[in-house]
């Protein structure tokens, strides 16, 4: 139904010539499962300090290495005898108590890179740390399994590498209404309406016109699908919450946006970390709480999986400015209604066995997490997307 609407729109917008060229190259699409599930990914940019997010309060080494940055035992929201949450994460504790949160400890990759840019690049592409790839893992998922551009979206002004494929790119917008307006300005509208076969050749210019028409059709489609829905849920005013609100509108309107990507920034806490990180985590916690509530009220929570990661964790030992420097492995949150395994997926990092740099050693490869969601949630072939087999995990 949706797909037909979309094609109709494309056809209207572009003189039906466009449709056949869009359908080309779709022979390889693997529609195994073709479920209607949503994956929401939240990137904590800047390197969130995992050890002050999930606190190993039973290890005296934690307090020895972090005399001023460490969070005192009394404040920790204790989940087990060894681990507890940052005091800002009250909503996360509720999810944990409901078995709707799975925490994966020490997720990383071999030969970790401590540069933001390089490490983010590795997380986005899914490459090894000595490889340089130009496409992102979700972009390649699109290449292999998505028929519509709007199947994968980033709620932001610009598109991250993670969502750029070899053949296809995801859409990026901050909300459907602005996105729509942006493509309906008189001049833009005319360009799209007047475009004919002359403009849609196989060369680079044809590619620009096709991208423009596709963007315009997608914006119209998303706008039409979501305009009648208004969320009853009150969201906090912070930016992440507003992004999640857009995300909930898409999900609750029944649009087949399979992947939603967004980031929450400012985690590079080299100085005065406790307050800065506390504020950011509080925003995150409140935003997620509102989002989950919204989805539950609309009966869509069980169709949604929320993944939260950061490009690296931070050094175990604090620095001289009441902050922490760049580190390696980190914890990762998976939130959902039907988790196969909730609670802690694996044991806490052992602060007595660190690498030569004083950083955590990874227990799980992030690409195992990717493989798991690709196979078990999105129903696609993870080897096709990641280039090789990674053993999937059983949190799903």
């Amino acid at each position: 139904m949706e797909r037909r609407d979309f094609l109709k729109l494309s056809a209207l917008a572009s003189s039906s010539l466009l449709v056949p060229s869009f359908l080309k190259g779709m022979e390889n699409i693997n529609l195994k499962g073709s479920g209607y599930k949503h994956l929401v990914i939240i990137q904590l940019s800047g390197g969130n300090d995992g050890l002050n997010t999930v606190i190993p309060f039973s290890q005296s080494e934690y307090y020895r290495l972090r005399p001023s940055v460490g969070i005192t035992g009394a404040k920790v929201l204790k989940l087990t005898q060894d681990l507890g949450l940052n005091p800002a994460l009250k909503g996360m504790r509720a999810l944990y108590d409901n078995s709707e949160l799975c925490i994966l400890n020490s997720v990383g990759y071999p030969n970790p890179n401590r540069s933001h840019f390089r490490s983010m690049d590795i997380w986005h592409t899914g490459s090894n740390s000595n490889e340089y790839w130009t496409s992102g893992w979700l972009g390649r998922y699109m290449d292999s399994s998505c028929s519509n551009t709007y199947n994968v979206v980033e709620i932001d002004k610009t598109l991250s590498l993670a969502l750029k494929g070899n053949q296809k790119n995801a859409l990026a917008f901050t909300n459907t209404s602005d996105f729509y307006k942006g493509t309906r300005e008189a001049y833009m509208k005319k360009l799209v309406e007047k475009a004919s076969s002359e403009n849609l050749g196989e060369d680079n210019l044809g590619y620009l016109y096709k991208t423009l028409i596709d963007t315009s059709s997608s914006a119209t489609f998303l706008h039409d699908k979501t305009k009648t829905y208004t969320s009853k849920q009150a969201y906090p005013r912070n930016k992440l919450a507003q992004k999640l609100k857009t995300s909930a509108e898409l999900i609750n309107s029944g649009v087949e946006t399979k992947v939603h990507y967004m980031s929450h920034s400012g985690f590079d806490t080299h100085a005065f970390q406790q307050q800065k990180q506390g504020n950011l985590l509080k925003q995150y916690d409140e935003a997620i709480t509102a989002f989950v509530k919204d989805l539950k009220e609309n009966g869509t929570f069980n169709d949604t999986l929320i993944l939260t990661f950061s490009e690296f964790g931070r050094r175990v030992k604090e620095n001289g400015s009441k902050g922490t420097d760049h580190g390696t492995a980190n914890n990762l949150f998976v939130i959902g209604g039907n988790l196969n395994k909730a609670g802690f997926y694996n044991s806490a990092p052992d602060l007595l066995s660190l690498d030569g740099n004083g950083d955590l050693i990874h227990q799980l490869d992030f690409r195992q997490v990717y493989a798991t969601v690709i196979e078990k949630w999105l129903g696609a072939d993870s080897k096709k997307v990641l280039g090789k087999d990674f053993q999937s995990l059983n949190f799903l």
Partner: protein
Amino acid sequence: MTKREILHLHNRFGFGLLHSQVEKLYGLSNVALVNRLIKSSEETSQLVLDLSYLAEFKGRELDVDTKKLLRDKLKNSSLELNHLWVKQMVTTEAALRERMTLFWHGHFACMIRNGLYDLKQNSALRTHALGNFRTLLIEVSKSAGMINYLNTRQNTKQAPNENFARELMELFTIGRDNYTENDIKEAARSFTGWNHLSDGSFKFKSKKHDFGVKTFFGKTGNWKGEDIIDILLSDRRTADFLASKLYFYFVSDVVNKSHIQEISEQLFSSNYDILSTVRLIMLSDWFYTKEILGKKIKSPIDLIVGLAKQCYLNIEEKKSVIAIQRQLGQELLAPPNVAGWPGGKRWIDSSSLLFRIKLASMILNDGNIAWNEKGDMAEDMLMMTSGRKTKRSHKGFKISVNKKALENAYLGMEIDEIAGHLISTKLSSSAREVMNKSNNTIIGKLSAILSLPEFQMS
């Protein structure tokens, strides 16, 4: 040469021409135009960055806070260098050298965020941009920027680090799949001891160097770094690899094996002389065919520099100039990784295309360009003043236009004539129809022309 061919040559190997300049060059032959381009780039005009504050830090023990202050100042200098570089691209007479410097920056992509090291590396790229590739490669490999970026300074006899050795082969010379893991190990051993001093000058630390025998590409000897480079250059596949990169960047995204072979042959037979190689491209018939003219997608830098030049933009504000680069996905001195910017169709996605199409008319009509930075990290703040971070504005930025100069430049010109100058590709009848509906002021005409997808082509 036709006016379109003259523009094509200068768009691809320079940063375009003003309408008045095209008129002056019209009538000259291909050889005369190429010789003129080469002649104007004989001198090297270095970027001049004020780093006098370094003196205060010199020769004294620095505590943690002072070190951080110095680091912040150097980061800020790196952003300043970016700004200076863009301004030079807009105004330079030595366009060919400027273009080649940018090409080599993409080839030897480093992100250092240290104004001193950035400046030194940029100077090496600039000095040897049209010289000999061997010299260029060695100078860049010995630059503090590269030594930091690819961990050459951590590469010691006791603990070899293969990062530089691997990229030297994969990205700078012979290309992937043409060497073994063992070649990487042996090359890494040969580069042990390459280091630099705090002023950025190269320092060979013989105590860290592995003087043992190495076998690289089947050749055995007491190889040093330079020997490895010579062995790589003596392999024809290195010339092939560089030729295909030159072809992709200057000519076309669509591979043409025989043209690439021609370039490779020239490069190899001239012992990697860059000038004669680019001269060959500029003088080939195939460079001016309809398969090539106007068929490349402009890089963000091409787009920004072109707009600034053709529309007389005031680009004195560093923040705006860098913000646009980030929004469009190409920030000088900050490539995505050591492989550089992938280019071609990869510049384009829905959001970058909408931004590209709207950019010119937003600027010309005094619009505010909405901007908020993604992934903001303390390391990478856009605005810094004297090393202290200031609060970033989330309101966006503006770029003003020198309207008087703009009016003068296009005075009395019909929209078709302006479009003929600014658009590199043939306009379809529909594009022409949309464009012609604009209002008749200079700003109106320009906005219409520059908002066409055709303006994105070079």
